[in-house]
């Protein structure tokens, strides 16, 4: 297997006002990697939702940082979202059940659900030294997930 080659990376302070820069970096890097618009839209959605959750629910107003990297490995694009927030695994958030009372729902659950719909795999691991590393994987195929 060819090692993943980082195409682009961006570090931002924990500030939702900087999310547009993350989206633009993903668009630009995914375009350079040969992805087409439907695919890029899905990837941008997933990365925005997960980066937003890191800032809004992970740092929750405290100072911090988020680093987003995009790499290509054979026929897949791999995005890692790294932060220094308290350890939290969003992949453990259950699928939404709208029949349950709303007070049982964790804030940010909508974003987690949307992100899941937009990529092939999401995995979490604690960051050595503190924080989280979230890895999103999407096979390089034309179209949105619904097009497959």
């Amino acid at each position, binding site marked *: 297997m060819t090692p993943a080659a980082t195409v682009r990376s961006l570090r931002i302070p924990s500030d939702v006002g900087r*999310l*547009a820069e993350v989206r633009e970096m993903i668009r630009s890097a995914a375009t350079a990697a040969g992805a087409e618009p439907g695919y890029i*839209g899905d990837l941008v959605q997933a990365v925005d939702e997960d980066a937003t959750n890191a800032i809004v629910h992970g740092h929750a107003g405290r100072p911090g940082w988020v680093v987003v990297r995009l790499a290509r490995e054979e026929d897949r694009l791999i995005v890692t979202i790294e932060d220094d927030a308290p350890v939290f695994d969003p992949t453990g958030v259950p699928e*939404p059940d709208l029949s349950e009372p*709303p007070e049982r*729902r964790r804030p940010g659950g909508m974003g987690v*659900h*949307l992100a899941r719909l937009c990529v092939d795999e999401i995995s979490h691991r604690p960051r050595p030294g503190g924080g989280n590393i979230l890895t999103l994987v999407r096979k390089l195929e034309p179209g949105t997930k619904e097009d497959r």
Partner: protein
Amino acid sequence: MALETPVEQATGRVPITVLALDGELDASNFMALIDQVRGLYEAGTRHLLLDLSGLQFMASSGLVALHSVVRLIHGEPPPDPEAGWGALHALGQDVSEGSTQAEVQLCGAQPAVERVLARTGLHRLFLSHPDRASAIAAF
């Protein structure tokens, strides 16, 4: 990309406020949109057309904003933006308890925004039109 939200007035069978969303709707600006619509309601708006033709991106926080807009224009308190799926739960109730409401309608949604609406079921709450003229005629 920032979000610009110019307002125009139009007249169909009823007076219509047209609010265009130009740019990207995300966690940084969705509360400002809710506040703007609260102000429009207080100024007398009862029929609102959201022109999404210039909306390039909508995050899940934008869904909370759209749902809040519907609640506000109906004279109801918006859901708690921190409620996450709770906000969508309330939306599910809104959808199941009645037919699609007609006081807030959409036009011009681009494919990426339509996908977000469809993936979360929010599209069921809105009448959606291809362009501003056909939307105004539908009020």
